[in-house]
């Protein structure tokens, strides 16, 4: 149901939908006027603003339903959406997490500079293609049986390290050390586990990628030093998630939570927002399953990190030790976190759908090396533009429950992009820009063409200007491998 939505501009970077009708809180969107105009003009049947209003109507939501500057329509929650819920009367929602549970980004920093790989980009791209399984129908080299899958569900990235994929040094720089507590393998169906057997250590497709980048600009010297970043340095960005196991958890619990929505008479405005009270048996079970799914995503990125290192070694003779994990953060998550609301410290369940955690300085969840400057926030752009490394701020802790954007945000449907951007043209354009592109899926290049996304610079400027995050470094692509 789409209704007429009143949208007020509250300052340069914020718009608000005032609380009215069934809304329990107002809704806030981080955007400039152009972003809102684009959003409004593209509002068809699937409306991101309507989805945000629907989230604001959910029981137990705190302060405001939030949308980051990369907002676009999803299902249930808009992508770029954040909702924090009080366990006393709040809910947990499948659409607030998404089907690709704990889809996220890892950034690796290398000891190499851009100049050192000049002329070797094609070879590096080919070797990465060889080592990183990607695309629909691809299978991983690591085959686990169901019992072993259970161990991954419990232990996350550390299980992969135990098998020789990367080292324990990586773990300290992954959100929650690559393992979420509360994961219960018995809450994950046999179907989900069977679907994963061949997919551990695979990139997937769609917007999942491995990108070799270089540091183009540093904005904050102190934080850049803490993150180990220098101009010209080669970095690697990996974007993938929990693969089929995560998708199946979403599928299984869609049914469970639909029944729970009826059982507990939760006033949801759209069926796609099915949810359960956080403290109900259904809510707790789904939470345990999501933690397990998140651990699979951590393990997947850990295995892929190892395979990327192998690709670099094969192509350039670079040792595995010369490629370190800078940080890894999920952007399809639900987690209990302490936040202050109206002067009161509360343990809230924070849903981030296409939004990342962005904790400010001092939080114990941040690795000690970065704690004084704040958590690295990893934002993937497009294959032809830029990506960003930001940091969380105290201001963001107060205003967005320590949350920020996750990418540029789509501006065009995949079908429209396919028509408008023939793959050959995109590859040629990228070549002119000095970017080497490889893709497994025949539509991946068209669908993920830079023009299909919002302008990353504007989106970042909004979030930086709002004070929720601060720019640390801009990185630009050199080699891009698409799923």
């Amino acid at each position, binding site marked *: 149901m789409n209704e007429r939505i009143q949208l007020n501009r509250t300052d340069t970077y914020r718009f608000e939908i005032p609380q009215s009708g069934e809304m329990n809180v107002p809704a806030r969107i981080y955007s400039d006027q152009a972003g809102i105009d684009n959003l409004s003009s593209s509002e068809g049947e699937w409306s991101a603003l309507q989805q945000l209003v629907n989230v604001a109507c959910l029981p137990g939501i705190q302060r405001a339903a939030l949308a980051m500057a990369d907002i676009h329509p999803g299902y249930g929650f808009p992508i770029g959406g954040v909702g924090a819920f009080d366990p006393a009367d709040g809910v947990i929602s499948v659409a607030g997490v998404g089907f690709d549970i704990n889809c996220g980004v890892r950034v690796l920093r290398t000891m190499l500079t851009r100049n050192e790989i000049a002329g070797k980009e094609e070879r590096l791209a080919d070797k990465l293609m060889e080592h990183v399984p990607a695309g629909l129908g691809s299978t991983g080299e690591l085959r686990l049986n169901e019992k072993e899958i259970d161990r991954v569900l419990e232990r996350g990235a550390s299980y992969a390290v135990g098998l020789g994929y990367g080292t324990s040094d990586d773990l300290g720089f992954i959100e929650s050390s690559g393992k979420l507590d509360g994961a219960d393998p018995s809450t994950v169906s046999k179907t989900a586990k069977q679907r994963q057997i061949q997919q551990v250590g695979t990139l997937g497709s769609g917007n999942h990628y491995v990108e070799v980048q270089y540091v183009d600009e540093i904005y904050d010297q102190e934080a850049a030093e803490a993150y180990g970043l220098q101009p010209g340095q080669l970095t690697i960005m990996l974007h993938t998630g929990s693969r089929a196991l995560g998708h199946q958890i979403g599928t299984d619990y869609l049914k469970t939570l639909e029944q729970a929505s009826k059982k507990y008479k939760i006033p949801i405005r759209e069926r796609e927002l099915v949810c359960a009270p956080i403290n109900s048996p259904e809510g707790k079970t789904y939470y345990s399953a999501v933690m397990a799914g998140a651990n699979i995503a951590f393990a997947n990125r850990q295995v892929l990190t190892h395979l990327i290192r192998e690709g670099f070694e094969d192509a350039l003779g670079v040792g595995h030790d010369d490629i370190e994990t800078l940080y890894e953060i999920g952007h399809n998550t639900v987690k209990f976190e302490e936040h202050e609301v109206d002067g009161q410290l509360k343990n809230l369940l924070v849903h981030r759908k296409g939004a990342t955690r962005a904790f400010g300085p001092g939080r114990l969840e941040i690795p000690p090396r970065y704690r004084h400057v704040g958590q690295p926030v990893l934002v993937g752009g497009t294959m032809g533009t830029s990506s960003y490394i930001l940091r969380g701020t105290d201001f963001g802790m107060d205003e967005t429950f320590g949350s920020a954007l996750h990418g540029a945000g789509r501006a065009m449907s995949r079908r429209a992009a396919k028509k408008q951007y023939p793959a050959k043209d995109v590859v040629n354009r990228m070549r002119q820009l000095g970017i080497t592109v490889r893709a497994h*899926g025949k539509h991946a290049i068209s669908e993920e063409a830079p023009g299909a996304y919002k302008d990353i610079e504007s989106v970042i400027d909004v979030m930086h200007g709002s004070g929720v995050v601060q720019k640390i470094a801009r990185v630009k692509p050199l080699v891009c491998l698409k799923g």
Partner: protein
Amino acid sequence: MPWELLDHQADVGLQSTGKTLDDALADGVRGLLALMVDPQTVHPRDTIEIEASGTDPGSLYVDLLNAVLAAKDIHAMFFHDVAVDSLSRERNEWHLTCRLTGERIDLARHDVESDVKAATYGGLRARQDEHGWLLRCVLDL
């Protein structure tokens, strides 16, 4: 057109129509199969049976599409076509069994299109009028 893809900024809508609910469900599956891989490049060598259930035709549609996605991964197969064997309803419980024909994934031969993560309740519609049934939902890509 028995099935068609609808524009969605991040994902894609899958709409299916048919004179009967069986037809609309089967054509929805055909749409999903064609979205992932050109069915003409997949030989119908093997048959597997899948089941789906729902509290109404809409949730049955979503469950069926997700059952197809699970079968693809579990059996490591792509599919050529689907045939509905039975569709039953007992009070608010709808149940369907169908057969998928296809073969083991062979990336050298199969013309792969796009991966689909899941069928969602996003934009879910299940409507019957004098022309037959219309089913629709958003697929997470």
